[in-house]
């Protein structure tokens, strides 16, 4: 996604959308593009696992005798343990389900918070201009220039471990990009008739932003949010892997990868299963984002599927 993609001329589809692309077809017929269907189905599957997580067992129950081999190694795949056990004799399946739950909670909440913060900054800066614009947009530049992992570790050092910390870190690092997007869009619309009419009628600045500009941001942000969610899932896993995210023993996909890495030579499933889960969740969000983009004529011309 680039700012350019976010603000094409209104009412015209990009050149790539012309002709018989899937997106154009989907728009014509009103059907969902296949990417959107696939992504939604995949995400629905993971949401159901997350909701039904308690059915898969207790992710914290350690069975140091029965859950490990005689020499203290994790158990392989068996009927009692469909995905084997981890190094503390806990059910890998239960931990996977709860890890997916953690990832999705982070994806959804951090997505909402970071986009809300970013959109507010972009709207205020774009509409009011002046020193406020200078301050907010330079802050945004700083936000975009930060090395994510390093900055995250610094913030992590200031807070106590847990889900809140991860959400705060992701919000603090992920707001700048939507702020940029929204700012560009506001600049495009700032001097349109409906905005200036509103101001001429005596509406306050906040009212104009709230009633006339903010609704125009929705298509843009709805398309952006799956991409943001995908990044959030990966970043949560990164943080937990580095020991700066969700603390053990809470199951998180990053924690599971971190634990599983040591066991790669004798229990590779402990690494591969959570890694595959992250891959598929990220994939589902990306497919949804792509599908939504295909349905939005303003954005359809830019696609990583390259039609």
């Amino acid at each position, binding site marked *: 996604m680039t700012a350019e993609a976010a603000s094409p001329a209104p009412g015209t589809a990009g050149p790539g959308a012309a002709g018989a692309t899937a997106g154009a077809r989907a728009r014509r017929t009103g059907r969902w593009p296949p990417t959107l269907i696939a992504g939604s189905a995949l995400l629905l599957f993971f949401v159901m696992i997350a909701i039904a997580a308690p059915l898969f067992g207790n992710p914290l129950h350690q069975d140091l005798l029965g859950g*490990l081999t005689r020499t203290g*190694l994790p158990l392989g795949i068996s009927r009692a343990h469909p995905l084997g056990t981890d*190094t503390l004799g806990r059910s890998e399946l239960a931990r996977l389900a709860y890890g997916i739950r953690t990832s999705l909670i982070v994806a959804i909440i951090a997505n909402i918070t970071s986009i809300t913060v970013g959109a507010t900054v972009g709207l205020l800066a774009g509409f009011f201009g002046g020193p406020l614009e200078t301050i907010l947009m330079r802050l945004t530049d700083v936000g975009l220039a930060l090395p994510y992992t390093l900055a995250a570790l610094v913030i992590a050092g200031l807070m*106590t471990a847990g889900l809140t910390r991860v959400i705060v870190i992701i919000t603090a690092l992920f707001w700048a990009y939507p702020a940029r997007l929204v700012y560009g869009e506001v600049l495009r619309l700032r001097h349109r008739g409906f905005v200036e009419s509103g101001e001429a009628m005596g509406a306050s600045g906040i009212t104009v932003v709230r009633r006339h500009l903010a609704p125009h941001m929705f298509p843009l942000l709805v398309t952006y949010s799956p991409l943001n969610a995908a990044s959030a899932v990966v970043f949560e896993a990164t943080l937990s892997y580095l*020991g700066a995210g969700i*603390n*053990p023993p809470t199951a998180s996909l990053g924690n599971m990868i971190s634990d599983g890495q040591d*066991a*790669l030579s004798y229990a590779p499933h402990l690494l591969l299963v959570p890694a595959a889960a992250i891959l598929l969740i990220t994939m589902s969000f990306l497919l949804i984002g792509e599908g939504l983009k295909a349905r939005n004529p303003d954005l359809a011309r830019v696609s990583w599927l390259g039609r």
Partner: protein
Amino acid sequence: MSTSDGFPPRRRLPPDPATPSGQITPPGQVTPSGWATDRRGFLRLTGAAGLAGAAGALAACSSGSPGSPAASQAAPGGGTTVHEYVPGPQPVSGGRRGGTVAVVWSDPPNSLDPAVGYNLTAWDAITQLVYFGGLMAYDKQVGGPVPNIAAAAPALSTDGKTLTFKLRPGVKFHNGRAVVAGDFIYSWERMLNPTLASWATSYLTSIVGANAVINGKAKHLEGVEAPDDHTLVVHLTAPDFTILNAFALPMTAPVPKEEVERLGNTKFGQTPVGPGPFRIVSYDSAAQTARFERFGDYMYPGLPYLDAVTYRWGVDPSVQLLQLQNGAVDLLGPGIPSSQAAHVLATPALRALTKERPSPGNLWLTIYLDKPPFNKQQVRQALNLAVNRAAIGRVTYGTYTPWGAPFPQQIANFKPVFTPYSYNPAKAKQLLAQAGYPNGFSAVLTIGSEEPYPEIAQIVQSQLAAVGVHLSLNQVSGNALLSLEAAAQNGGGHLQLDGDDWYQVQPTPADEVNALYTTGASSNYNRYSNPQVDTLAAQARATFSETARNKLYARIQQLIGEDAPFVFLLSALWLAGVGKRIHNYQYRGETYSYYDRMWV
């Protein structure tokens, strides 16, 4: 102590073995007549401590003196015979000259300067390659200090406060110059000088004038003099048996003044010059390698056998294991990582590449005793009774063994008297109720991110939950944990429980007692203070008879065990990763792998 790079060291070297010397009260029972002046007699003296099974091993020391048949009998297979007694694990004879050994490490050495280096990689290179002991060196597998650069055990004055060392002639630095008594004075003054910021200054605080040098008030160490090139006289403020251990450790080894001045302190930390069996020929921090080659003029003729030892660091532990397996490296510097130990021991092909050796280290949870509920002894004892160490041992199989008592499980000649805590949740609940916590309480357990702490913490968390003690885990980086501990030691911070360990560098309980348990000790982070322990520790420190002082340490162990300032969990084992080419792999927990007697 911890490295500032990504990989935390698996072993933490004590920054300080000793309390400030001012706390020592000179006792009356020092018997200078017990001090022998020749090496044989000295060995007999240390051997006289002989308790339990160690007695046999130590009795053997006294027959290991120069020219005795024991040294040559030890040679297997008719290899080279070393006609001299060399301190450290035996045998030294029987090797074949030549060959290169490749050692792989996780961390870079923090410095190879003997006064500055402390991490695992540095310690190994300093204690066994560029330097080897100091005036003294540790004897056999578990023995105490015996003469090394000193020609014989020191003569002790009647008040126990003056030690006179005669130096062995013909000991040379790698640059060819002979080691003289003045080198020790220069090296110790350099080490104590605050500008070098050595971690090890407190080892020498019992020398007269040492504190003045440490505080920057004096440049010269008043209590050491060299009447001639081969005589060194050391004056102590009070009798202190640990000073001989300090003299056996490489921080007190001689460094040549001319080389330090030529290279400067930083460069000397990369390419140090010493009298050890190997000289460093290259140090490449970009390629993460160092190369050490055989020193032809080594003080023990015939040694070392190897032509060269190479180091490579910055390698992930699981990759190290693969490299050992396919023969790309010969030795795993940090040993088998605890996450791999169970797997390695369960796989015959890998198990063949391991060697088990005693390791005087232990692991525990520190209880910060200032605030409720931990200020109650019953609560602390309850925590000790509520953990099931056998279950933890399932996960640390091969690198730690369950051990619910103060001090490492195996210390030379020390017989534990304290009955280790065992798993008894019912008793734990009862004690918690007596202490006024029938429904338990909540607390935070802080741990570093290096293994095996995260796993141990999770197990302890679930075990304590069963008696109503609900822990939340706070995992931080190793360096962050150190600063939290330092804050707690100064009376601040918010630590309640944290995971910690100790690897002794002296073969005596004094190492832990003087660093962890006496009031104001350097690593007494939880500010544990028991006047009885302090009195006994000072008394033990001035007691030169090992038998007598170990009785004092046994009483100290009992007191500490009952006070329960820690949740005692595990005692360490050393599981070495040794390639098939290596012969005569010898190791001590204090001084690591003995390259001088290794051959391929």
